[in-house]
């Protein structure tokens, strides 16, 4: 039997009169990528906040890495790292300083070495000593993710990791997420892009009006619908493909 990283049972939360979560259930296997899909305001971020101990639930239980989020928040925090919707980086510090700071707060033995390794891995070595305020959106996201990997926590929470990224940076982010999962880490991500869930996730859960209305592998979800019919459709390149092709050509020159 595979180990379970996250187990959520009958999770409930309301903000004043607004009932956001009405009994959410799901489990996430260790080492898998789990995508929580839902429209804006469906409660995805609320679930992430409860699982990362930033918010207390009104009812139900959530177990992360074997620890109850309500009674063992400190142990839960040791097991995870959170990458929020907006790059949570310090703009006035340099990229290297950001990483060293997190390494120090995680009480690692060699903060500088850890920082340098991550800078290399995320292609930020050249920009390491520049202030983050001079970074592009994609670089900030990479640094943000690198900061989440400091101290190798077993579970990563990514809240809409590609929102606001250009297509190139998005594909790059997907690549990194896949690599991380191949390394045995559990990844919990939220997204409003169907394609993203399709590309990345081992299991997908759809959150709608406070409940999980469907969950399973992509294949299982597809079975919920009538069998595919064969149709002949002229395949036009999407704008994304055109964009990437042109960019690719430019770089080849």
């Amino acid at each position, binding site marked *: 039997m595979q180990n379970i990283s996250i187990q959520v049972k009958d999770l409930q939360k309301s903000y004043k009169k607004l009932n956001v979560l009405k009994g959410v259930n799901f489990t996430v296997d260790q080492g898998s990528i789990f995508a929580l899909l839902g429209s804006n305001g469906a409660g995805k971020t609320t679930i992430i*906040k409860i699982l*990362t*101990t*930033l*918010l207390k639930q009104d009812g139900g239980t959530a177990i992360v890495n074997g620890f109850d989020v309500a009674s063992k928040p*400190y142990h839960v*925090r*040791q097991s*995870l*790292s*959170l990458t*929020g*919707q*907006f*790059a*949570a*980086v*310090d*703009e*006035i*510090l340099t990229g290297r*300083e950001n990483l060293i*700071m*997190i390494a*120090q*707060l*995680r*009480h690692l033995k060699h903060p500088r070495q850890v920082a340098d390794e991550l800078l290399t891995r995320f292609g930020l070595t050249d920009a390491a000593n520049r*202030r983050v305020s001079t970074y592009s959106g994609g670089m900030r996201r990479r640094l943000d993710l690198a*900061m989440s990997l400091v101290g190798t926590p077993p579970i990563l*929470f990514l809240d809409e990791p590609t929102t606001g990224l250009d297509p190139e940076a998005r594909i790059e982010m997907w690549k990194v997420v896949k690599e991380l999962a191949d390394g045995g880490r559990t990844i919990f991500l939220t997204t409003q892009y169907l394609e993203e869930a399709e590309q990345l996730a081992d299991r997908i859960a759809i959150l709608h009006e406070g409940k999980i209305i469907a969950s399973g592998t992509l294949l299982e979800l597809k079975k919920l619908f009538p069998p595919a019919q064969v149709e002949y459709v002229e395949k036009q390149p999407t704008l994304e493909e055109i964009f990437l092709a042109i960019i690719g050509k430019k770089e080849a020159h």
Partner: protein
Amino acid sequence: METIQKHFFSDMSVMLGRSMRHIFRSMDTIITVTIMPIMFMLLFVYVFGGAIQTGTANYVNYLLPGILLIAIASGISYTAFRLFTDVQRGIIERFRSMPIAPSTMLWGHVLTSLVSNAISVVVIILVALIMGFRSSAGIVSWLAVAGILALFTLALTWVAVIPGLTAKSIDGATAFSYPLIFLPFISSAFVPTRTMPLVVRVFAENQPVTAIVETIRALLSGQPVSQEIWVALAWCVGILIVAYIFAMRAYQKRV
């Protein structure tokens, strides 16, 4: 829980290092916080000072305590500013989801405020010395002055934490400090209260700045301190406790 406590001070020093870097990398912060009080001091000593009758021979000596309080009152608005930025950028959520004591981040900002205000106070005293400030105070009196100023800074910093966490805009986060900067003008900081109209005078004599200014002035001039020192301490501790409670409450809510 043991581990949190074990690392509390090292975590806090990381936070302190972070915001001190912020200060040293934004020269405008340093300039505003020290230059503005120094300009006030020059203005009052060399323009208005000749016409002000304080009953003391050296007007710089009379003025300095009030100038120091103005410097601190404007300095703490930057704590609100830095905290507000942290909340907006989401870095506060990263810290809160890490295995460190939840209050580490706030204490880091508060400690930064103490250190940076101490620096500007020292700079202003050095300028005052050039302008003719002289003190007959001994080491104990100087320590007492440092203690009162530190307590005043601490109290106002916790006040600043509240708008820093709750404000909706950057203007809202820093605007609260304007009345605080203005408060020394309606006190005995610049002129003795005895010439003020009754209503203003009652206000001036019973607001915290007068008690603090009078105490520091007595300490610096080597005179015996009156019971004003207890009034001053009571104000500082009172503001500190109330502000701390509200700030912590705002922090619990802010996630």
